[in-house]
């Protein structure tokens, strides 16, 4: 193992050590020491991964390739060896650093957040348990990032799900919290069901569950026209497409994509730092990360589905966010919407843009969630933005840093220049690629990228670059859809939503911090905690600078060859970006202006409009009735089935058994007077009575008789041995 791999491995394992320590001795460490232990662990991981980033930056392509060592065997499935190793590349390094960095500051924030009574469950402090779970989460998440095989990915995939379950349900004395935890886990399991079946397909068709091996064999199989992968499967899609789609199911669950998005808003029942870490910055982005990793296994049709799911999700999330009044719910729906953007990006081939957006989003969304945590904790657990207002006076730093987050998510920047915040580059890059896939002639950025790229995926570009980028690399294999332009909706819908995003974010910020205080009680007690302010400032600084300068090149370096937009300054992309400026460049201004105009004088104007648009408002307030629908059809259906099975078990199966035994007894009644009398004596009709009679034999046994029986049995066994030995001797 190379030293870089060892460092990443160590950085992954350190939080596990912290978890074990806190699980076994956390109560003794107490408050706040237990929190500092966990923080120190993740900070150590962060330092290590920072060192990895620095060293990685200083290496050339050859050295980077050499730093990767062969995986070690873990176990064998059938006759297929499963191996595990560290997936050392630029994407891993970038995401790893993001996770450890954001985690560290969220840990610090958490100590402040939990300093009051927020760590209490039913009046009992569970401070150490919170940090134990956080450490376990960090371990699982980092493991997920470095996993180099699909099985290992799945293992950590489920572990982060477990941590999510435990932390959403941290306040488990609240029925709403434990219900939300179950919902999260079960909905994710629905996606994972597809994931497992996808792994089954990979095993069946490719016979290699490592990421690199599967990609290689997939390319080979797709190149062979007679390959089973190219056979038609259900719904007119070929097997290769199904393979990708089943794996994608997992991502749909974890990244809260339509139609499995319903768990994420409920997950806000968890403590706010958890929402920031798991349900905004890291775990929910894992679905996008997975798609990035299996990108080479996705056929054009599969990618179209990915893009479609993303497009629906980003619209849905944004529309619902507009009417939310709980500050965390606004952020939750905005997270869903942003995850939709990332998925859309993956689907249209903006691999780099999507991951770039993942990284910038992690910073600004964690920042805003922590800001909301500060507000909630400061306002004694008031979460309704309608009761806030004017908090900027009480919480100036929170207000300012939150605004930076709002600007970033809105994609604020100065058109025509390179001055802007995270979303300005990352979201626009996704839109630019979508545009060129819809309207372009397919030449944009169609250029293989540098030598550090891994083996070309099966959908690599053609050599000349004249055709669309996503044409199959293997001659003679043409997917008609590959070069066909995408539906225009995949560009226009996200553009329209790009106007809605700044609106609802500004609405949230304005209602919280600006205007006149609407609730004196909330306002009077609001205060900022020093320990919680520091992470806000750090993450705000990160939002301002980190995204562009550090992450994009790291990610770009591992992009599968032949993707659009290989480099940030690739001038075709740049041109598209410029061309888009009139369309989306001013979106944030428009959105902000509308929001301020609506809410500058409080809630009355918006309420009047809501009354006017009653049906629409209702629909949004009820989140398009997904919960109601699923509750009725899926949950209700399961309960119905369960009841039917139970009835069947008790009445039919047991009924037959009892009837059989009863009729046996009835038969026996005629056979002997003795028995006959006894049954008549106890004559009560019905099965229960009859079986009691049957059991009477056992009931009437005295201990003495049992002793006799045992003696006989044991004696018999001993005699058997003796006989055996005698016969053998």
């Amino acid at each position, binding site marked *: 193992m190379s030293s870089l791999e060892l460092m990443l491995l160590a950085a992954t394992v350190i939080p596990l050590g912290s978890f074990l320590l806190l699980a076994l001795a956390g109560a003794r460490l107490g408050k706040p020491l237990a929190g500092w232990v966990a923080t120190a662990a993740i900070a150590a991981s962060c330092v290590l991964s920072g060192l990895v980033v620095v060293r990685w930056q200083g290496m050339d392509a050859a050295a980077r390739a050499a730093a990767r060592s062969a995986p070690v065997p873990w176990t064998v499935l059938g006759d297929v060896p499963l191996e595990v190793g560290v997936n050392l590349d630029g994407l891993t390094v970038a995401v790893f650093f993001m996770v450890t960095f954001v985690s560290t500051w969220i840990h610090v924030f958490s100590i402040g957040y939990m300093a009051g009574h927020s760590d209490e469950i039913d009046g009992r402090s569970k401070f150490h348990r919170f940090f134990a779970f956080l450490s376990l989460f960090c371990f699982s998440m980092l493991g997920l990032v470095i996993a180099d095989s699909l099985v290992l990915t799945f293992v950590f995939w489920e572990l982060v799900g477990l941590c999510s379950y435990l932390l959403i349900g941290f306040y488990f004395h609240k029925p709403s919290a434990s219900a939300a935890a179950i919902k999260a886990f079960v909905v994710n399991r629905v996606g994972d069901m597809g994931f497992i079946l996808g792994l089954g397909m990979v095993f*069946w068709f490719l016979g290699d569950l490592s990421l690199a091996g599967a990609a290689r064999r997939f390319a080979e199989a797709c190149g062979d026209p007679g390959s089973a992968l190219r056979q038609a499967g259900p719904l007119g899609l070929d097997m290769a497409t199904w393979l990708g789609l089943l794996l994608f199911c997992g991502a749909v669950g974890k990244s809260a994509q339509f139609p499995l998005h319903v768990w994420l808003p409920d997950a806000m029942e968890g403590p706010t730092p958890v929402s920031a870490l798991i349900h905004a910055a890291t775990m929910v982005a894992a679905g996008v990360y997975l798609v990035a990793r299996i990108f080479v296994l996705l056929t054009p049709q599969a990618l179209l589905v990915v893009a479609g799911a993303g497009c629906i999700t980003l619209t849905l999330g944004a529309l619902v966010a507009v009417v939310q009044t709980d500050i965390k719910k606004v952020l939750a729906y905005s997270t869903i919407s942003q995850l939709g953007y990332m998925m859309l990006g993956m689907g249209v081939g903006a691999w780099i843009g999507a991951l770039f957006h993942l990284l910038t989003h992690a910073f600004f969304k964690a920042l805003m969630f922590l800001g909301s945590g500060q507000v909630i904790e400061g306002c004694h657990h008031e979460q309704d933005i309608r009761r806030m207002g004017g908090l900027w006076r009480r919480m100036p730093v929170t207000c300012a840093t939150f605004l930076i987050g709002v600007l970033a998510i809105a994609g604020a920047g100065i058109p025509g220049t390179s001055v802007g915040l995270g979303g300005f580059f990352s979201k626009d890059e996704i839109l630019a690629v979508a545009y060129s896939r819809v309207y372009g002639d397919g030449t944009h950025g169609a250029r293989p990228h540098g030598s550090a790229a891994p083996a070309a995926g099966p959908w690599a570009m053609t050599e000349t670059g004249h055709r669309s980028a996503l044409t199959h690399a293997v001659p003679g294999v043409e997917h008609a859809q590959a070069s066909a332009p995408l539906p225009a909706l995949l560009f226009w819908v996200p553009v329209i939503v790009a106007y809605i995003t700044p609106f609802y974010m500004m609405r949230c910020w304005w209602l919280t911090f600006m205007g006149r205080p609407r609730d004196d009680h909330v306002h009077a007690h609001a205060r900022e905690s020093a320990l919680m302010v520091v992470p806000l400032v750090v993450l705000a600084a990160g939002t301002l600078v980190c995204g562009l300068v550090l992450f994009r090149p790291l990610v770009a370096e591992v992009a599968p060859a032949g993707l659009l937009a290989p480099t940030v300054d690739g001038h075709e992309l740049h041109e598209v970006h410029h061309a888009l400026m009139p369309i989306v460049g001013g979106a944030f201004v428009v959105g902000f202006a509308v929001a301020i105009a609506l809410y500058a004088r409080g809630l009355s104007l918006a309420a009047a409009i809501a009354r006017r648009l009653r049906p629409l408002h209702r629909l949004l307030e009820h989140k398009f009735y997904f919960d109601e629908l699923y509750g009725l059809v899926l949950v209700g259906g399961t309960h119905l089935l369960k009841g039917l099975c139970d009835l069947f078990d008790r009445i039919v199966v047991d009924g037959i058994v009892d009837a059989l035994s009863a009729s046996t007894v009835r038969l026996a009644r005629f056979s002997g007077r003795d028995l006959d009398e006894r049954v008549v004596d106890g004559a009560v009709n019905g099965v229960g009575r009859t079986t009691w009679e049957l059991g009477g034999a056992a009931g009437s046994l005295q201990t003495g008789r049992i002793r006799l029986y045992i003696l006989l049995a*044991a004696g018999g066994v001993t005699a058997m041995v003796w006989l055996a030995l005698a016969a053998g001797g």
Partner: protein
Amino acid sequence: MEHGNLLNLLIFLPAVGAVLCLIVPGTRTVKVVATATTALVMLLSLGLFRHFAWWGRGDGWQEAVFGGTYGERLYEVTRLDWIRLDGTTIQYFVGIDGLSFPLVILTTLITFLACLASWNIESWKVGRGVRGYFALFLLLETGMIGVFCALDFFLFYVFWEVMLLPMYFLIGVWGGPRREYAAIKFFLYTLAGSVLMLVVLLAFHFYSPVRTFDLIEMAVNDRIAAVFNAETTSFLGWKFATAMFVFLFIGFAIKIPVFPFHTWLPDAHVEAPTPISMILAGILLKMGAYGLLRISYPILPAAAEHFAYALAVLGVINILYGALCAMAQTDFKRLVAYSSISHMGYVLLGIAIMTAAGLQGAMFQVIAHGISSPMCFFLVGVLYDRAHHREIDRFGGLWLSMPVYGSLATLGFFASLGLPGLCGFIGEFWVLVATFSAPFAWARPMAVLAAVGVVLTAGYILWMLQRVYLGPARPEYESFPEVTGREVFILTPMAVLAVALGILPQQTLFNFMNGTLEQICELYGDGVSMMASVAGMCLGR
């Protein structure tokens, strides 16, 4: 074949202990004798590891440990003539290979832990003797180890019966309020299975061209195989192999238990005392799967293939039906019992698809369930000892009043749920993936249905956890004492194994058994692979 006496010791030491239990003075001494016996048996069984050690043997260890073909390498073999009939000799033939070795270890371990779990027998308020209980308990261990070690069909049958009676009494005498009903149900069901097995035993003997009860020989002797699997061999108008397979299957299906022969299990579990439930779930259920792999599949591979679809359907029904029934239960122990039915469905499915990956998954699930389900039953028992009821809806907030217990319970039930990193995952995952890639056209839809079980399992286990352990603390349970040292001592080995098996499946289990499983696969491998190529399903590789 390596001779040795260790198995004889393992089998008969508990019987000696049982006799001792009846004659030593004082109930405490009885407990000490019983515990010492089970502990000694467990420690002795560890000696078996020297035969299966994959470490320190270099690259050729697999060949050295398992040999080339099925039955070639058996360890600790004792082979003596026992009963002479005209032309036949019933043998006392015991030995172990990779199939039985993990089960023997599991048996000695779980029996030891269950024995410890029996220490509070006085508090069960059944008013029955301690002496009889422990004596029967030890006799049961003799039967169980005997079943896993016997390689002569007749001997197998004898041990099968030896195990049946103590179980009947342990449930019927030391059980709960409806113990008679449960015990008689258990007894009748199992007896029905035994009768069918007896028919097969005799039929094998009379149809075989070589008069033998030797299970290994019946599997590897071509002359026997030719007669048994021939189309023309008929039994009461049925095709011989088909009839025998069905009879054996019903016998074993009752033990596993397979729908619709499963209803004895929830009743038996609910009424049985905690330690007996641990043994029932941890070991007795496994004998069904073991029987299929030791007798049905090696000897009657053609029939197994013929019934593959039916068995797989039953396996999937078990998974889904068991999970749905578990969801409907209000009694904590009944829920765990139905979850056993669901989990054993994966075992049946893995066996049914007749591939190496499927067998590995099935056997892993057997052992994993043998660890997680006793743990779950003991966790229920811990609660029952304190609350004296098991109604799920009356509990709540127990993670608050008993934090250590709550954490261990979370671990145990997540192991049962099949969370990666814990033992339940590997078996489930292997079986699902293997089913998906099995060489049968119906395997894909079957895998999809079985995968639904993954969601249902999460549903009923989390819902149960929510109702029992989460929620606000209830005043009536505030005073419950935290788990005692004895209870933690019992739970810890299972918890550690649950984690170890989940993280290092190869080192902890696969290396000990895969060699033999492959040999069993080879016994029927030709037929299946031929069929696969006909169906054009052998793809990709």
